[in-house]
């Protein structure tokens, strides 16, 4: 783990659930249910309920969530951030749980693994695809006359940094 001394402070790119919870203050939640009433994912994913996630974290049952895939269902619509009357932000709580599950070496749902692999390979969540047009032609960027999609110039350095800011554990687990 690399650390930086900045103005007498030590800084590391290390995630800690404890710090995140301290910052997000889920204990202020009084269960008004606004988040679960408006949640995009809750309407289509059976057991995804932001208010319950906040309550579980508040009551000390974070482990149950970290070991479950349900935290990966959030649609990032940020409505809960916008309308939470207590500024608790269930979205951020869910992101903190995801981060913690990665830090503990859990493997996220496949598509997330694919995206992470791609970031470590080309610097983007996916590579340019061939797209089927209405005339049943498969076309690429080049065929459409679009310039090439650039990669990070010093790719090795970039990759090293991506690992440093939080991809290290995931890389070990998914063996890229």
């Amino acid at each position, binding site marked *: 783990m690399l650390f930086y001394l900045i103005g007498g402070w030590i800084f590391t790119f290390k995630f800690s659930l404890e710090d995140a919870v301290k910052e997000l203050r889920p204990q202020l939640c009084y269960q*008004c*249910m606004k988040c679960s*009433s*408006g949640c995009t994912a809750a309407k289509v994913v059976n057991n995804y309920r932001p208010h319950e996630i906040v309550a579980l974290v508040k009551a000390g049952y974070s482990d149950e969530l970290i070991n479950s895939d349900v935290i990966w269902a959030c649609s990032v619509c940020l409505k809960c951030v916008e309308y939470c009357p207590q500024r608790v932000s269930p979205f951020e709580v869910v992101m903190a749980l995801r981060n913690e599950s990665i830090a503990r070496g859990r493997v996220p749902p496949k598509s997330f693994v694919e995206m992470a692999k791609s970031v470590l390979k080309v610097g983007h969540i996916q590579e340019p695809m061939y797209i089927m047009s209405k005339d049943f032609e498969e076309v690429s960027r080049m065929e459409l006359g679009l310039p090439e999609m650039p990669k990070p110039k010093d790719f090795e350095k970039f990759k090293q940094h991506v690992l440093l800011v939080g991809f290290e554990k995931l890389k070990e687990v998914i063996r890229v």
Partner: protein
Amino acid sequence: MVEDEEVRIGVYICHCGLNIASVVDVKKAAEEVSKVPNVVVAKDYQFMCSQPGQNIIIEDIKQHRLNRVVVAACSPRMHEPTFQKAVERGGLNPYLFEMANIREHCSWVHEKEKVAATEKAIKLVKAAIAKARLLKPLKREKVNVIPRALVIGGGIAGIRASLDIANAGFEVHLVETRPSIGGNMARLDKTFPTLDCSQCILTPLMVEVSRHPNVTLHTYTDVVNIDGSVGNFKVKLLKKPRYVDESKCTGCGTCITKCPWTAPSEFELGLGKRKAIYFEFPQAVPLIPVIDPEHCMYFQKGTCRACEKFCPTKAIDFNQKPEEIELEVGAIILATGYSLYDVAKAMPEYGYRKYKDVITGLELERLVSATGPTKGHIVRPSDGKEPKKVAIILCVGSRDEKHLRFCCRFGCVAGIKHAYYIVSHIPDAEVYICYRDIRTFGKGYEEFYERIRNYENIKFIRGSPMEILQDADGSLYFDVFDANTNRIVTLRPDLVVLETGIVPHPTFKEVAKILKCAVGPDGFALELHPKLRPTETSVDGVFLAGAVQGPKDIPDTVAQAGAAASSVIALMSKGYVETIPYVSSINEDLCSGCGICQPLCAYDAISLVKKEDGKQVAKVDIGKCKGCGVCAAACPSGAAQQLGFNDEQILAMVRTLTR
């Protein structure tokens, strides 16, 4: 006189139960300070503020011929007057007393460092002793109280307070910015938990206050300025022109019938219309109409004059001008009340004002009222149809860090009452109450809640919706997570009622600015003490009644109005107030008349005067001076000194603390 005498100090260290004694070694502190020069006795005691505690001081003054007393205990805010009175009973001038705060400033904040806390406590007491040595007797001045009160705001709080003061035999001037008194309570149909008719219990009081020989009513009038201090306030009012001569008008209403122009009614919250000349509502007091120049064709285009033509008593007077009224009063009650939080602007997600069928609880009151725009029929504003499915949403804007942090204190019971309105008017209607917590704390409220829970067609959903949407066919729908049944419920109500949070009425902000009285972070008036002095403000002689101090239901409002009135009555029955002696005093020999202090004084207490010998000096009006000490701090020559806190005394404390 005391000055020539040998200084003999008694020091008393209070345990405050265990509040101080569990941290500070009080025995050791007493022993340490007993060694200080001039200290004749030094004792510790469990509760110095108790009767026996005070008696120790009184006994010691006599026995040890003490001429200064120091008590080390809590903050002087609460008990300084207690001990000053004790010292006075012992035969000394009450200002030969000094207090050291070793609770808030020491034991409470240094719980974990007992040794250091004891040292700090000893230092604080020694500093108080150093000051006590230099104390001089001070005198309170008596100021007569004008036996006349001003009540600002003509809602239930202002009416009740005015009546109480008037019934005690004192003169009252009641000021209301709207054309009629009555306030928000006049808009209600029924009052919880008894469901008695709001108008039936309010209008008799409105009439009584208007007919009371001791009450002068100033409706359609604003407060422009207030000067002076407790006992002697000089008030300037501005009476807005009604364009109707009050002495001639009989309130027959012919003018209103004949007026061809209409405008949205303020009283009906825009749900109904009124004429350009109008009564606020049928039971308005006084029953004198007002012309609204914005909608009157005569004012806009110079034609019409229908009202003038048909008025049987020739009371219409288009030339009426705003009228200034000056008053002198001894005390003021603020009863400016509340307005609803602006949900239309602050919470667009609920679509209030965007969708016609989303209304506030207060608007529902008007729809239910027999004198309201629909003559008491509950209908949807969009199409005039009877709603069969109604959703009531509680805590709209309240208990929300992004909007109003506080609980509105009547939304829950009002919502429950509103559900009752719906099912009693439309028996086959279904009502859904979306709540977070149901707070039914008042007397009889829980019983009322239980009664309403018994209705099969009133359903309680424990959850708040995030937003209200409108479908293509104009119908409203929203999802709400119900924690009771653990599922998302989709509701398609015909009508949505928002129980919105409340904010202080906008007039309060202006009055607070004029009076310089303290305002809390929530925008409501700040009382002097949340529990023990809930009706007093930071300005002596200015009292609070009702929602101006914070959200309140009617019983609490009326209770506080009575309390505020009795404070005013007490002040007037006594007939005088004693000024605080800690005022600024100018040493005219030292004063160079530079005038630096004058603009700094926040209370306009300092003026520059020419003495007989032609020398210009500053002069303090002790009636206005609050003893803030700004002039003393700014005075370059040391001529301005705050009595009881002069430079010498403060520096003696500083020297002791830094030794």
